[in-house]
Structures are given as structure tokens and as C-alpha cells.
């Protein structure tokens, strides 16, 4: 047995060497690879940034050959950094060298690996498809059912992508009107209460720790008789309503609360930059202006581009600009704002 193993390894090695020669892959190139691997550790020597366009993912190879060992699969839309390698090899075999994080047995490292360049493209080519819209990390419904890693049941919510020219521009946006009598002075927001001489006071705390709070008055909703305020935390923030009469009721939202024209539904969105996900909450407004949560979910594949602005809302649908979560930012770190798509969300929620 002791003799068989080395013999097998030798055969395998000679086989690999033969393939490399056939692929015009010379010792000079191997030396270059070793040099680059060392260089890349210290300098991100990237010559270009591209994105995986293969819908089913792109195989990563140990060497620039389809017969080389498979190290993993990069998902659709994944950003990859190309490393400066021998252009002749790239053109001849279509493989390009990229720098990727490769978990392998007990070793986890960034290293030079190879992918088929045919399945790499520009960021503009990466788009959401309808089947990706419903996938969640989790979602919750009113009956306290919690679902993880599942698509949202179509009997609750439906997701579609719509063309910009199909959006009904006459639909009135549900923005809560601002008022002129609520002002913020020296970091203090003072809101007078109805039928009371007392005021609600929100004072900024601009310490860069967990106690950080910064308030902004957004407006007054007459149908709900509530004020809308934004509370910024050290990271993130939330909107909340306070009752104009007693100021005690505080209902929080992950994003700007958009109210349906019939005043029965509130929809909010949030782009979560820490998980690269899109958050959605839906509430119902009862006859007594109470607000109850119907749905909350964290979506894997899309993020709202501008959660404070939707394109339209009616009594059963909302349309908002979204981006595929893996291309929420351009390669330069700015928001990929020109590449958005329109998500139409339709609900069939139990309002009783």
C-alpha cells in the first residue's frame, strides 16, 4: 500500500503536467502564478472588476482548465477581482485568474483561482428575475408563524417586476404632509400635545455610542391623528408615530410608513447594508386608528434603492425601485442608482 500511494500521486502529477503543456501553460507561467499569489497578499493588484453572469453560478477552478479540480461555485451577481495574468492564456482558454476567498478543508484563504471568462460581465448585466423576489432569510405573519429560508407564500404576497412605462403615474403618493409649527431648536424637538399644556420633547444625544439619538420631524397624518418622527441611532434608525392627543402611543417602523389611499394598510421598506438584504413590514390600520403588524420579512435578493420614496401605492399594491442585492453598490462604492428595477408588491393579507 505504501508503494501504491506515491505511484498514484506521481501518475496524477504527470497527468496534470501534461494537461498544462497542452494548454500552453509553461513553467514560466507557473512561476508567475506563485509570484502573483505572494504579491496579492500585500497589494490588491486587481486589473478589473467584473460580475458573475451565470444564473446557476460559476465554477471556480484550481488551474485554468475545465479538467482542473473544482474549488467551489460563485453565485450569480458575485463581484470578482481579476488579477493580472498572461493575456495569451486568457484568450486561448477563456479562463481568467481572479482573487477569491477559498475555504478548503482546514485552510481558509484569499488566493488566485480561475473561472471561465464567458460567464463574467459588467454590473449592468446583473438583473433581478421574478423567481428571486420572494426568497427570504426569514418572514413572520400575524398568526405568529415564523419561516426561515423560504419563499413568501403567494397567498400572502405576490412579487412582480414591472416596466417603468407600466406604472400608473396618476396614482397619488402617500406622503404625510409636513407642518410648519413643529420646529427643532438647538437639538430639541418640541411637539405640543392636543388638549394639554404639556409638550412632547425629543432631545438629540450626539454621543458616538449606543446612546446616540438624533430626531427629525417628518409630518402630521390627519387621518391617523399622529405625528411622524425619525429617530436616528448610531447605526440605522427608525420612524415612529406618536399620538397627537396623548403622545404616549409609539409605533415603530423600519422605514418611511406609506399609507394606502383607503387608510387601511401601511407599508415600509429598509435597505439593510449589514446583511445586504431588503426588509419589508406591512401593518393594518384598524377602525380605531390602532396600528397592528401583519407581516415582516428579510429578503435575500433585493434591496430598496430609496426607501423614503415609492413610485406608487394603491389599496393592494405598491411599486418601489429595487436593486439586486449583490449589485446594490457600484464597484467604486457608490450606490448603483442607474441600474434599478421596479418591484410591484401585491398583498392579500387578512385584514379582519
Amino acid at each position, binding site marked *: 500500500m505504501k508503494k501504491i500511494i506515491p505511484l498514484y500521486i506521481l501518475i496524477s502529477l504527470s497527468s496534470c503536467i501534461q494537461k498544462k503543456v497542452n494548454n500552453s501553460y509553461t513553467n514560466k507561467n507557473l512561476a508567475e502564478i506563485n509570484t502573483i499569489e505572494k504579491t496579492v*497578499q*500585500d497589494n*490588491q493588484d486587481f486589473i478589473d472588476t467584473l460580475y458573475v453572469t451565470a444564473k446557476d453560478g460559476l465554477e471556480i477552478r484550481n488551474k485554468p482548465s475545465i479538467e482542473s479540480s473544482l474549488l467551489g461555485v460563485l453565485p450569480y451577481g458575485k463581484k470578482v477581482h481579476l488579477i493580472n495574468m498572461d493575456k495569451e492564456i486568457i484568450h486561448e482558454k477563456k479562463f481568467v485568474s481572479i482573487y477569491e*476567498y477559498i475555504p478548503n478543508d*482546514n*485552510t*481558509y*484563504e*484569499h488566493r488566485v483561482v480561475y473561472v471561465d471568462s464567458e460567464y463574467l460581465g459588467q454590473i449592468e448585466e446583473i438583473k433581478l428575475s421574478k423567481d428571486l423576489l420572494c426568497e427570504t*432569510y426569514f418572514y413572520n405573519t400575524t398568526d405568529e408563524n415564523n419561516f426561515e429560508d423560504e419563499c413568501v407564500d403567494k397567498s400572502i404576497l405576490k412579487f412582480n417586476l414591472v416596466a417603468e412605462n407600466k406604472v400608473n403615474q396618476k396614482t397619488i403618493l402617500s406622503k404625510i404632509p409636513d407642518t410648519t409649527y413643529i420646529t427643532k431648536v438647538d437639538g430639541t424637538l418640541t411637539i405640543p400635545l392636543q388638549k394639554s399644556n404639556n409638550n412632547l420633547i425629543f432631545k438629540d444625544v450626539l454621543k*458616538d*455610542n*449606543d446612546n*446616540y439619538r438624533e430626531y427629525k420631524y417628518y409630518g402630521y397624518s390627519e387621518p391617523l391623528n399622529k405625528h411622524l418622527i425619525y429617530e*436616528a*441611532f*448610531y*447605526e*440605522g*434608525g*427608525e420612524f415612529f408615530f406618536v399620538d397627537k392627543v396623548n403622545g404616549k402611543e409609539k409605533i*415603530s417602523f*423600519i422605514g418611511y410608513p406609506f399609507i394606502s389611499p383607503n387608510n387601511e394598510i401601511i407599508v415600509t421598506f429598509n435597505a439593510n*447594508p*449589514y*446583511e445586504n438584504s431588503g426588509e419589508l413590514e406591512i401593518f393594518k390600520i384598524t377602525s380605531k386608528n390602532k396600528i397592528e403588524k401583519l407581516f*415582516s420579512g*428579510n429578503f435575500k435578493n433585493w434591496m430598496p434603492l430609496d426607501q423614503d420614496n415609492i413610485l406608487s401605492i394603491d389599496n393592494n399594491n405598491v411599486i418601489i425601485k429595487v436593486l439586486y442585492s449583490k449589485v446594490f*453598490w457600484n464597484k*467604486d*462604492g*457608490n*450606490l448603483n442608482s442607474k441600474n434599478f428595477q421596479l418591484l410591484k408588491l401585491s398583498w392579500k393579507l387578512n385584514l379582519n
Partner: protein
Amino acid sequence: MLECNYEDFVFNGFSKADGRPGKSSSHKNGYNGDFRYLRTDKSGKNVHLDKSDEKGDPCGWKGMDETRQNTFNDALYKFGWKDMLSWKYNKKLLNHSKHFKGHHHHLHVQNYKPNFTIKS
């Protein structure tokens, strides 16, 4: 931090600080962290990149030590933090960072992927 040999780091913890319910526990896994931006006066005081003031507490982007901050970002990237949230200032972004609201007063680092080998 040893790589840069700076003494004025202000580190605000490796956790998610907004306290909002329903968030993933991955924000509190000890691998995501927040740092104040570095200042040219090395005082460790605040920098708010949505302002331009050279002095004050907070000062604006003119008071940030861009060279040292980018060196620090490079070091964080090198040692495994491959994703950073920051703020676009003066039409620029710090090295390896992405612009996102709420990050004018701190650098958020995440997506920790260090090179390592498990020895049995």
C-alpha cells in the same frame, strides 16, 4: 492597528448598536466593528464627514487625516475585513469603503474573512 502604529484610534465596539428588534444576531457576532475617523490633530475627537470644517468637535472632512485613514483601511482590508461602510465626502470615498447613510460619523467594518489554517 499595530500595522499602522497609530495611537489615536477610537473604537466603538464590535456589535450592532441600533438595538432594533428583529435584526439578525450576526450583527453581534464580534466581527463587525465601528471606528471614529482619524483626525489630522490626532486628538481622537469626532469627525463628521457630512461637514467640511477643519477644526471643532466634531470637525468635518477637512479635519480628517485622509492619508492615515486610508492606510488604516488598507490594513483592515489586508487582515480580513473586506467590506466597509463609510460616507462620500468631497466627491471621494475612503479606500475599500461603500457609501451608506448614517456612516458620516464612523467607519463600519464587516465581512471578516481572514486567511487562516486550522491545525488539528
